């Protein structure tokens, strides 16, 4: 609770939280805000924006409602971004915790795997993964997570290495606490804050990667995404630029919102630490 209070005390935190809250609301209420399938033909094609009250942002080449696409696209973007980040953080935390806590050979082996994943550009990895397995939302999530878990793993390991030398870990051992309990109860919660701050950046990167995959036609074809909308509008960019611009703006607002939120979160966490 105090974290949220600290978060909205800074302007960037307040704005970021506001944008994210609005987007989450839109995503959750998408079926109510624009009922029906956003991929179905709703009106005559290439209706310009701001001319028809029923279709404020106009329609695309096939006559699909652009606003409906953006509203439903919020769902996909946020869901994929957050799911991919959660998966990446979860994998990263486990690997980092294991490497830092076990040390020795286990540490060496795990960190070389991390190196391998950091060397390969994450977008190429996602591209290859989706091309081979096929495009669907879970595969896209996994593909993005595969390219993003190495950073949190490194950060977690560094945190664990520093925390495990503290006296409270020694006192936990002295009272006979099981190593697994020490790892998850004593070390993990204290290693978490910087990883949490990193997670927002991973969400932003994941949203962008998802959009890029969709743009290249490697997104899930059964759901509407901002990336696929931009790709769709690209062919007629000169005659109807709005088709690419509106989803583009949605993407920019989301990523900026996530970054601001991350900035605010970092400050709030740092503030809390200096209080201690």
């Amino acid at each position, binding site marked *: 609770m105090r974290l949220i209070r600290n978060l909205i005390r800074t302007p960037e935190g307040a704005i970021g939280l506001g944008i994210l809250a609005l987007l989450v609301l839109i995503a959750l209420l998408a079926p109510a805000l624009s009922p029906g399938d956003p991929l179905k033909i709703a009106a005559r094609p290439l209706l310009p924006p701001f001319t028809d009250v029923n279709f404020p942002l106009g329609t695309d080449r096939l006559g699909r409602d652009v606003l409906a696409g953006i509203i439903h696209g919020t769902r996909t973007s946020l869901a994929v971004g957050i799911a991919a980040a959660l998966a990446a953080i979860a994998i990263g935390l486990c690997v980092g915790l294991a490497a830092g806590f076990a040390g020795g050979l286990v540490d060496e082996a795990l960190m070389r795997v991390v190196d391998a994943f950091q060397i390969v550009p994450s977008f190429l990895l996602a591209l290859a993964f989706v091309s081979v397995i096929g495009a669907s939302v879970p595969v896209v999530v996994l593909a993005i997570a595969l390219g993003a878990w190495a950073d949190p793993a490194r950060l977690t390991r560094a945190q664990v290495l520093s925390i495990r030398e*503290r*006296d*409270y870990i*020694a*006192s*936990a*051992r*002295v*009272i*006979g*606490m*099981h190593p697994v309990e020490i790892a998850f109860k*004593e070390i993990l*919660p*204290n290693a978490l804050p910087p990883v949490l701050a990193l997670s927002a950046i991973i969400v932003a990167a994941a949203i962008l990667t998802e959009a890029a995959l969709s743009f290249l036609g490697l997104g899930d074809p059964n759901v509407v995404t901002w990336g696929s909308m931009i790709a769709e509008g690209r062919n007629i960019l000169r005659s109807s630029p709005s088709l690419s611009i509106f989803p583009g703006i949605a993407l920019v607002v989301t990523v900026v919102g996530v970054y601001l939120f991350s900035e605010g979160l970092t400050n709030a966490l740092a503030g809390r630490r200096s209080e*201690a």
Partner: protein
Amino acid sequence: MTLLSVENLSKRFSSGGRQVAALHDVSFMLAAGETLGLVGASGSGKSTLARILMRLIPADAGRIRFDGEDWLALTGPELRRRRAKMQMVFQDVLGAFNPRATVASVLDDPLRIHGIVPKNERPKEIATLLDRVGLSASYAERSIREVSGGQRQRIAIARAIATRPLLIVLDEAVSALDVSIRGKILELLVELQEERGIAYLFVSHDLAVLRAVSHRIAVMDAGRLVETGTARQVIDNPQSSAARALIAAVPRFATGTSAGISEGHDS
């Protein structure tokens, strides 16, 4: 009755390819209910000895018998179970607690891990422990960050006695405390010893403190145990140069008056 016997304990650290002997052939005994003060300048190896005893770091060579068992041979679950009998109080009153802990959770952990009392009686036992170390039961719900240094050390002592140990290793346990609080904590430790027969290995660089609580004092210098004797013997008639240097470093001993912080209960 011998509770703890340490024989020929050695430990080397390698730093930058160079081997540094932290402990060299250290042997001593400790009887049940006795306090052995372990004194030495910084870097003399006293904390290393304490940490080896607590099985926090491994020894290179030597044997430790504790409560009739080969202490260094214990591993895994067996070691964790036996740890109840040997507890430790750390110097750093803040660093020794998880910053997210509450007073209740700090005391709950050892009670839960060793099943000292049934689950539903744990809150009552926590209140009893707090009361025993001179804190009101209302402290239980506080965050560990919200209590003062002296109170934290009382909580650390409560945590150490929670598992009903036979031996508590006190690693500079009062060095970080205010002088006024220091005396009260020492009194509490002596009281607990008389009441429960706990043995202490009291590690300190401060002879005035050790004189107040120790039955015997062992002097360490550069990883070796150079002198052992009753508290009075070591302080009044030091044999080793290290002991003499430590005594000279305490102004009130050097002037010949024996105005220590309180009269020791040396045997």
